[in-house]
């Protein structure tokens, strides 16, 4: 399925891109699956999305958890814990 990925703050700088249109393979059903899929893309992605990295995510602009299901055309954002205020 096709989804829109967005990356913010330190994660965006680390990856060198603010987002992309991604085609996900069958079997990527939740945010946890997606994170593992992205981490497997290569060393730079492993560093950004590996288990040691503390990340938050939003699906369609609402905060989400690793168990959140992904649907076609979702807007999925990954970012470090927020630091506003």
């Amino acid at each position: 399925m096709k989804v829109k990925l967005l990356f913010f703050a330190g994660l965006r700088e680390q990856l060198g891109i603010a987002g992309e249109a991604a085609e996900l393979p069958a079997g990527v059903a939740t945010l946890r699956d997606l994170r593992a899929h992205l981490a497997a893309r290569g060393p730079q992605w492993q560093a950004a999305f590996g288990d040691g990295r503390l990340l938050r995510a939003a699906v369609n602009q609402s905060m989400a958890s690793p168990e959140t299901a992904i649907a076609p055309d979702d807007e999925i954002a990954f970012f470090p814990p927020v630091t506003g205020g």
Partner: protein
Amino acid sequence: MKIAVQREPFGIDAELDALSRGNAAVGAMAAFVGLVRDQNDGAAIGQMTLEHYPGMTEKAIAAIVEEARGRWEIIDCTVIHRIGELRPADRIVLVAVASAHRGDAFAACEFIMDYLKTRAPFWKKEVTPQGARWVEARDSDDRAAERWR
């Protein structure tokens, strides 16, 4: 209710005036103002950049305000958060709550601020003499938000 994510500075007097003007049911207003400090984690701060997630930010703040409305008697409220380049002593955020009585205003103001710190998609990058760095989230902010569960 006013929610604004903006580059421009805001005036506290004008915002508080607008919050209570024409509504004599308001008996109390509580406001929190967050400012850029000139020190953080042992380093001098020369400048700060605030990034956000356009589209989600306003929704996230609106959801926090809605939750506050479900818990306390709120007549009106204003949340303004700045983005872009900021310098020490600049104001970052204003949360102001108008209620009939102070208890609701104080509690709702603190709740909105605690939730904003952990749920609204803003990120600070600060410039120190050693270079630029992203501000790390604090456990104390998570604990502050947890208190309200």
